[in-house]
């Protein structure tokens, strides 16, 4: 059974309030989801909190999962991402800022080629191909925003561009991405 099917089955068992299935679900998915939280929050103590809240949330809302037609991992990742973003937007909370410039610099730049290894699945190949169709700034901005949960303002600051420019890159980039991906579907 593919990993996705195993996770889907575990989730179905969780919907029946099966604790052992939940423990297994945690065992299989927590490292990846913790990684997602760390990338956005950049602080392990916050990421731990967010991961814990997310799993409590997953348990509580698992019966609603299938109302959305998404892959199980996508659904759980969305919960963690949303929690992490909410966490960041609490008042009086500042992420360490200095690391971002490093982050921006470490992003694959176009000199190295726009190839992005996302995996072999059809969706992954489609996304990688379509990201290639974007221009470099659009691609970078979108990937940076997604990976690290940066706001328009933060992106503008770290990319040293006017806010409006960054917003346009993202909006146009997403539009082109959608056009390209829907065209391949």
């Amino acid at each position, binding site marked *: 059974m593919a990993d996705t099917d195993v996770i889907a089955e575990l989730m179905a068992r969780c919907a029946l309030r099966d604790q052992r299935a939940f423990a297994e679900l945690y065992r299989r998915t*927590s490292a990846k989801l913790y990684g997602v939280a760390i990338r956005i929050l950049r602080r392990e103590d916050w990421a731990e909190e967010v991961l814990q809240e997310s799993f409590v949330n997953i348990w509580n809302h698992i019966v609603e999962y299938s109302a959305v037609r998404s892959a199980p991992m996508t659904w759980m990742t969305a919960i963690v991402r949303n929690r992490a973003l909410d966490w960041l937007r609490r008042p009086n909370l500042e992420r360490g800022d200095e690391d971002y410039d490093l982050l921006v610099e470490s992003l694959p730049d176009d000199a190295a080629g726009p190839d992005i290894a996302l995996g072999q699945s059809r969706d992954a190949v489609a996304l990688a191909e379509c990201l290639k169709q974007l221009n470099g700034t659009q691609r970078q901005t979108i990937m940076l925003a997604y990976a690290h949960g940066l706001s328009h303002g933060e992106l503008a600051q770290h990319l040293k561009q006017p806010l409006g420019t960054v917003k346009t890159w993202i909006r146009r980039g997403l539009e082109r991405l959608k056009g390209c991906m829907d065209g391949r579907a």
Partner: protein
Amino acid sequence: MKYRNEHLRDALAAEYALGTLQGRARRRFERSLKGDPRLRELVARWQGRLAPLDALVEPVQPPARVWRGIQYQLESGAGRRGWWAFRTNLGLWRALAIVSTAAAVTLAVLLTALSPTRRTPETMVVVMAGADANPGMTVSWPMHQKGEPKLRIRVFGHPEMPSGTAWELWMLPGGEQKPVSLGLIGTEPTQELTVPQALAPMIDRVWGLAMSVEPSGGSPTGQPTGPVLYKGQCTRL
């Protein structure tokens, strides 16, 4: 706040999934999501489009205290629905109804495997779906009831009931046998229907249930005459 323009709705869904929709705009968007399944669908699609980017995330083993914290929170009741509580709630049946075919088979096996250990009274559940395979209502009842069994009905498909029409619930005995009317129901989200004494012996053994649209007052022929809105097979739990 309504986002009427389809283009704008999709653009907001995209930025919500990407994470750049933030602050007040994000909260406003989340409020709209609650009552707007179509908007949720747009978001889910964007989440799916972007999900392969998660492959770039390096997994990191969380410390053991995180799992202990989760267990503690669920045991202490922060888990709203209780750690052990088995609830025959709407969401659950919805969840069970829509799992993919492969998962559904797994689930059937699983339910069989689980049932001997559960000592709660047996319940019959029917998830009734429309032609689009989306569940629109559920009916459940405790099995082996004495007297006149009471069915719990939940309607969540929100279809309209035009004036001059009625909804009639039917037992589908299975095989070649004709549907048997259980009576009329309303459009309220939660309802109860008492099974007439004469039909009580049948209810635990029916194959499934169906709901059809009939003239007000019910089918004139004793058989479904209008379109069947929802239909589903019984599952014993």
